[in-house]
């Protein structure tokens, strides 16, 4: 069944900030697109579809969150054929969200703003180490890493330099309620994308013994 009415044009672009947590952190980027398509179908909002032979919900996810990481600041855009108050859109979306995805904020954005991927500049991450770590030695390692001119690394059989992709690293010492944490601001652009696991590996640790959370997406202002 595919009784397509003549295509109306999108009337509104909606930007959603959402959390990705729980079991959903093991859902990869492509699968997440489908999860969102189904959220929007369940919402019955007048969602805009792509043109063509296989019309699909028009979706634009800002930046792929690596598998296993959580975030409370993921961003996506979709389009509506009608203009609807963003607070109403949020109210409609919340009950149809699957476990692990939570709507934080809904905004209307200008229809002509460039795609989110083009606007993306940096991602902030927070890393918690599950095994105890001696803070002084750790700080030394971080300083050494920041002091390095280049950090040659290999990712999927491709050599690259990690160092220019690291904007900043900061160690937050353990306190009675928190273990040692490492925060980082990494480049998040299409051809200059750093993965926090790579930084952790460059520091000499196994990312499997960490818990990583994305804490902010930084867009071009």
């Amino acid at each position, binding site marked *: *069944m*595919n009784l397509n009415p003549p295509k109306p044009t999108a009337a509104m672009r909606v930007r959603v900030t959402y959390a990705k947590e729980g*079991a*959903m952190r*093991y859902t990869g980027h492509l699968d997440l697109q*489908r999860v969102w398509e189904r959220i929007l179908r369940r919402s019955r909002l007048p969602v805009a579809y792509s043109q063509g*032979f296989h*019309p699909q919900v028009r979706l634009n996810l800002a930046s792929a969150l690596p598998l*296993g990481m959580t975030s409370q600041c993921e961003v996506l855009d979709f389009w509506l054929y009608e203009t609807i108050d963003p607070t109403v859109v949020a109210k409609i979306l919340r009950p149809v969200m699957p476990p692990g995805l939570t709507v934080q904020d809904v905004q209307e954005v200008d229809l002509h703003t460039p795609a989110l991927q083009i606007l993306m500049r940096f991602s902030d991450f927070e890393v918690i180490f599950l095994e105890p770590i001696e803070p002084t030695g750790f700080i030394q390692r971080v300083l050494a890493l920041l002091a390095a001119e280049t950090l040659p690394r290999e990712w999927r059989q491709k050599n690259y330099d990690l160092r220019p992709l690291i904007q900043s690293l900061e160690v937050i010492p353990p306190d009675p309620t928190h273990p040692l944490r490492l925060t980082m601001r990494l480049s998040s652009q299409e051809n200059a994308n750093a993965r926090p696991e790579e930084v952790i590996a460059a520091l000499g640790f196994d990312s499997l013994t960490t818990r990583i959370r994305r804490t902010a997406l930084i867009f071009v202002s």
Partner: protein
Amino acid sequence: MTLTPQEIESRLERVLLTVQKPGRYVGGELNQVVKDWDSIATHVALVFPDIYDIGLPNLGLAILYDELNRRADVWAERAYCPWLDMEAVLRQAGIPLYSLESKHSLADFDIIGFTLPYETLYTNALNVLDLSGLPLFSNDRTTAHPLVIAGGHATYNPEPMAPFIDAFVIGEGEEVIHEIVDVYQAWKRSGRPRQNLLSSLAKIKGVYVPSLYQVSYQPDGAIQSVEPLADEARLPVVKRILAELPAPLTHFIVPSVDVVHNRVPVEIMRGCTRGCRFCHAGMVQRPVRERPVAEIIRAAQEALDATGCEEVALLSLSSSDYTQIIELVQSIGAHFAGQQISITLPSLRIESFSVELMDRLHESKRAGGFTLAPEAATERMRQIINKPVSTQQLLETVKAVYQHGWTSVKLYFMIGHPSETLEDVQAIVDLCKSVLAVGHSVIGGRAKVHAGIGTFVPKAQTPFQWVSCDSIEQVRAKLDLLKHGLRNPNIKLTWNEPEDTFLEACLARGDRRTAEVIYRAWQKGAKFDAWQEQYRYPLWVEAFAETGLDPFFYSHRTRPQEEIFPWDHINAGVRKSFLLQDYRWSLEGRTRPDCREQCYACGILPAFSELRLAYPDAAWKCP
């Protein structure tokens, strides 16, 4: 001794990112059911013994999940096989197989229920028990262990799995699963030995407790007799059916990672009256029961609302035979217009009317090709298997398909039908070329043909349960002929490896002694036998050799008409004498018409006469 869910989750967190597609192993999907573990009387783990991707879409288990979770005193959870990488990780990290919802070890459950839709899952079922730290053999399990039950189409011959399973459910599970839980709960309150549980289960109609039967063999290996060892052991065990199909399921679990058949299914009809002789489902799913059009439309809409899926599959063994198929397709058109969803209607008859039906369902979409299943390429062969379609009718249908805008036709054939010769196989080559020529004449060089070749495996409870399955060499010779003959850039050929067919053939008509072969093959590392790339045939050859059983006895042997079969004490409602008559007719090349027109006394009506009296309005499609 087993790990707590917290311990399991904490260990999992450190290993999940080392395996492919970890989303298979975490649960937490939309519409999964979560309850409070401690406040639930009976915990049931429903297991599809293959990976999540294959098991999640299974409608049978989804129905039982829903049935059980409607009860306040039961929590049904799910478990699937870990893929090889995850199995290694689980064993290494000392993590038992766990349920996706609560992350409890399967050993913590009261009841483990397997679905066994096909035979090549048997080693996986053993692996699931082993990964759960449970004894594989029913005899070795005690009151401290879960009750292990199994159902599904393969269990119409339960014997190869008899030593591993405490009780089998024969037939439809929607009602009997509740009776099993009730019996289990009463037994648990009673504090009596495990044997009492098995005896009580045996009293339930449709439940087969294999340990309550003694099998003896003749010197030639055939069955001498199957004797009940207790009063409560029924002989035969007659399958369970529902007089009327229950309200269709709509709250499907929506996977957060991709799976096969990522769509919502709506069963429009159960059973089939066509009587294709090779078809196991067509024999064991009788009688035909249809759902009303309005109920189907309502269910499809509810399922779409609950899941957000973009595709609905209308399921049945033969969509064209659904009495109100035109009304159904028209109502779908009226109801779902503009919703951007696709509807699939599989199993259409080979006639141009089917093309019209598909045309109405797919206003503009022509992707995916048009599937037809002639099963055999000569009219002689199609008479033997009782799927009488003329080649002319096929070619006319194909012409209509290409004319209506499809560019690809998928044709399903089986090789290895009884009495099939290389000429019959050559006819598949010729027919595919004729179909392509029709395509060329209609749409020119864009026309494509896809020939999907299955290999016939004789199944228990069918008219062909007496016949010999082709040997590996015979199958290979036929496949070679096809591969050679269909070398054409516009013809795509897909097939099953002969070794896989051979294994299925040995297990499908196996007896209780084959359990030892399954056990040994599993010990040697056999698993995922349904996966062609998991080539473990030599392990099976070794396992047969060690047990002293001849695989050809099971696969490559024409049975005498009077032979007692290992599954004769399991009754699918169709009489053995009817199956035998149908087998004889096939030897004469005589077809049996659709039994919606005239009753041929297969036995289903007398087998369920009480049920029919109790539900006089039930719309069985028996005349």
